[in-house]
């Protein structure tokens, strides 16, 4: 399944409906469904916030191949920004040493099996690809 979504935080409602249809069609378990929602929200909202000058729609594709789930978000007309290779927040620290923020992409990296980033300078297109193995 593949579809473009408006570059707005309010598009999340449509995105969750799209994912709900996918989860039903591909017979995805509840735990993985939760993870997919979170991963897509974090990556999508990151693109909305960091790539304000990009094209009007962000493309989301998702498919199940055997026991693996593959999803990707593609954002065009944007500057180079790698959301994958970022430092982890100090999750073992107490409240005094921590600050709000920085958790979203860390959650993505921790909850999936693989996440990668590529950038095509010609089209100024960034692509984030995620693989998640399904629970047996």
């Amino acid at each position: 399944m593949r579809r473009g979504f408006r570059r707005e935080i309010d598009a999340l409602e449509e995105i969750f409906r799209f994912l709900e249809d996918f989860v039903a069609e591909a017979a995805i378990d509840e735990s993985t469904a939760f993870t997919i929602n979170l991963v897509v929200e974090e990556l999508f909202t990151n693109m909305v916030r960091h790539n304000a000058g990009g094209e009007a729609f962000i493309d989301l594709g998702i498919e199940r191949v055997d026991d693996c789930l593959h999803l990707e978000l593609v954002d065009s007309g944007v500057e180079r920004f790698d959301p994958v290779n970022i430092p982890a927040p100090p999750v073992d620290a107490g409240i005094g040493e921590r600050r709000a923020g920085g958790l979203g992409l860390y959650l993505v990296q921790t909850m999936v099996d693989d996440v990668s980033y590529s950038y095509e300078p010609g089209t100024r297109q960034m692509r984030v690809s995620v693989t998640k193995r399904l629970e047996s």
Partner: protein
Amino acid sequence: MFEITRDDSGRVQLQGRFDAAQVTRAKEVFSLVDDSCVVDFAELSYISSAGLGLLFATQKRLTERGQALTLANLNPHIREVFRIAGFDNIFKIDE
């Protein structure tokens, strides 16, 4: 669908899906929390980092005044997200 309410005892009730589009509404309620209270997750099915960030900011503000949020009735998926985020060090979580 997301709802946030506060009952007469001061307990904050969360319901539905707490995503990035709901933070402004939730902030209106949490900004009025000045004392220790329970946040009840019993009817909450989903939360992302946007909700975590607001809860963290509220906890940090309260802790500086000697107060704290206690989180209750987290479903297993949300509980796991809190564990990964290292929030076991930040919140008292009633199991």
